[in-house]
């Protein structure tokens, strides 16, 4: 196990274990389930959507706004994670907590705006 290539053995074992888990799960599935195919069931799908049409797919423009709002909160989270690791540490305390909520209020302005402009309703 020692030596330069020894550490690669761990990788190989991990790979083998991973393959075994996936293959085992599929195998158990195959053994337990009834098998009654219909054309719909045999269709390939992706995230629940039929792979119809060409590679150049159009999607609802309204998704764009939701993506936008998602990005707002993703950026939010980037700042929240490092903050969460330190705010309880000695020397930070209430000021740090309040500061983060001030930041969150500014971010929340965005969602408030989106809500009032009726972006959040689909129809």
């Amino acid at each position, binding site marked *: 196990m020692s030596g330069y290539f020894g550490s690669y053995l761990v990788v190989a074992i991990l790979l083998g274990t991973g393959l075994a888990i996936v293959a085992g799960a599929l195998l158990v599935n195959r053994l337990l389930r009834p098998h009654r195919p219909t054309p719909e069931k045999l269709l390939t799908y992706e995230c629940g959507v039929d792979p119809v049409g060409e590679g150049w797919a159009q999607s609802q423009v309204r998704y764009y706004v939701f993506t936008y709002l998602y990005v707002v909160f993703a950026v939010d989270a980037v700042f929240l994670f490092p903050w969460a690791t330190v705010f309880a540490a000695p020397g*930070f305390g209430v000021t740090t907590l309040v500061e983060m909520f001030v930041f969150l209020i500014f971010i929340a*302005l965005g969602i*408030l705006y989106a809500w009032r402009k009726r972006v959040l309703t689909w129809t």
Partner: protein
Amino acid sequence: MIQSIDYVAIGAPLALASAAGLVLLLDVFLPRRTPGALGLVALAGVLVAGGLVAAQAAGGGERRTFCVPASGAGPGDGCSFVVDGFTLVLSGLVLGAGVVVVLLSMTELAERRIPPGEWYFLLLCALTGAVLLPAARDLATLVVALELVSLPVFALTALKRYDGRASEAALKLFLVSVVSTAVMLFGVSLLYGLTGTLHLDRLSAALSAVPGASGVVAVAVVLVLAGFAFKVAAVPFHFWAGDVYQGAPVPVAALLSVVSKAAGFAGLILILTTGLREQAALWGPVIAVVSALTMTAGNVLALRQRAALRLLAWSSVAQSGYILAPLAVVGGNAFAASVAYLVIYAAMNLGAFAVVMPVSRTAARNELDDYRGLASRRPVAAVALAFFLVCLAGLPPGLAGLFAKVVVFRQIVEGGLGWLAVVMAVNTVIGLYYYISWTARLFAPAPSGPGRVPAAPMPVSASVAVGLAVLVTLAFSVAPQLVLSASG
């Protein structure tokens, strides 16, 4: 550890940002869309910020905040936000320009075709960035503030959605600005990688201490310069100016030509005179050549323009060249001449935009020939415009422009850049041609064609904007020491 924040120091940007948030909330919660009320709130926000800046100027002294305690990183106390004389002059410029732009916006939004809440929110955001920028003393704050100035302007340009030219202008501005930011970030990351510090006051010494890296330093400096050259529309990155000024709504063109430009120059001056002080031998000649090319290109392109806004666009490119010229003088306090020129330029250029604004509402194409006979239709506006044009040209009745040019000439001659002074003198003469031919059109008899629209009365907000600009420019003409002592 928690940094203590000096709230007095960051008062002005804080007031603007709060006003921006307030405008956005009022827009979505007020029952009826009221452009007038939102405009007044925005105006109040700018005035409060202006009051805070004035109070700080009256109080004197220097305020620093967001400081990192001195460590082994080098000299300087490593403060990210410093309010000193330079900061106050440029913040005052930006806020004064902000008042005029908000007043012009009221006229623009009176047609009720542009959503007012979004407009004022974006405008106040851009002003926040422009006030933040002269106070920034580290590279990260500088870049973030510069982006805060740039990003809202794309959206402001595109808010005139019913106009295809506005969308085109917004797209051009967006692409140019994003590319320039990317280029500048390359330079900034090289500087940071070489020195390990972002603070401008530590950067210069740290750069000198890096052994055998002069090639990399040169590349970094040129990349940073290129990024700023886009923002101030200096050659060879000036092509966007004409189309964008013409396509954008007039208040946004005014914002671009004054606030955005002032912000770009503030950043440039800070980086060159603080961060790269000891690398002056490297950037001095580059700036001199860019300055000469910029003023020449701007003036030559302006000669052939028929549309008023395009002419103002190329004239503002040429003026950028004049503002750049003193920066090429290595060492000393030459950049004060740039600041003085910038302040005077802001007043007279805003005035020109303030008169062009109401004319653009009656003449859709806004060509120079639409100004024929303006003196008989709107005598006051015509005289005001003539005054601003003469100021921009630097002729005697408009002493402000003359003083500004004299200050710049003196600095570059004293700095030993005689050839640049000659180029600038030739350019001033070229500039006379188009400014004076426009002025002459104002007083020419109006063409008596059919379909000539009778002049509508000037909107009140536009009149106030013109009046403010006239007052400030007159004050600078009578007492130029106001600017010269403040910026020196």
